[in-house]
């Protein structure tokens, strides 16, 4: 069966520090991968999605970036965090083709920028 992992689970970082959040998927190959952010008590904001290694599409211009160095690894980064980067970061994957559509979410990373 497929599983999706995110780490760390929680993170407290000072303003101006760098960020690296990691997401890995097991049990599937060539998935679509997604990064979402969720502010407290609010909806889901799509940040990036990827259809393959090295292929990243950005949905919202900001100081975050994403990379996909391996088929089942998706990384969210920032060189300098802002207070407004605080939130709950969710990674998701979906299969391609006829089985596509449903996105399966990871457990999330709660980021607090102080």
């Amino acid at each position, binding site marked *: 069966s497929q599983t999706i992992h995110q780490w760390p689970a929680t993170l407290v970082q000072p303003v101006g520090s760098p960020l690296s959040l990691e997401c890995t998927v097991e049990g599937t190959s060539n998935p*679509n991968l*997604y990064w979402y952010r969720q*502010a407290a*008590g*609010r*909806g*889901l*904001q*799509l940040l990036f*999605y990827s*259809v393959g290694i090295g292929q990243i599409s950005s949905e919202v211009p900001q100081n975050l970036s994403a990379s996909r160095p391996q088929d089942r690894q998706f990384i969210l980064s920032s060189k300098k965090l802002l207070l407004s980067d605080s939130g709950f970061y*969710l990674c*998701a994957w*979906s299969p*391609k083709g006829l089985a*596509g*559509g*449903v*996105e*399966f*979410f*990871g*457990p*999330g990373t*709660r980021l607090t920028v102080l």
Partner: protein
Amino acid sequence: GESVGLHLPTLSVQEGDNSIINCAYSNSASDYFIWYKQESGKGPQFIIDIRSNMDKRQGQRVTVLLNKTVKHLSLQIAATQPGDSAVYFCAELNNAGNMLTFGGGTRLMVKP
């Protein structure tokens, strides 16, 4: 999604009552819809889906209704339980079939 910046509306129901959560979607060409449940501090989980060639689909204690005429989707939960307390999101699949657009979400609170 366009409702990302808004606080979540809340539906409060008594334990044992039925709950109905509503969602309006924007793309009349969408042919696949999903409901997700998100418990506090966790990622959203798939509950039930429906394709546009159907207007109703039932699961265990949940039913999704689709009205394509008015672009409306609803999730009905029978005999709501405390464990149903969560935020519920609807989502529609884009025409390319590779991305979901999420609704703003509804918080369901179940009173014992």
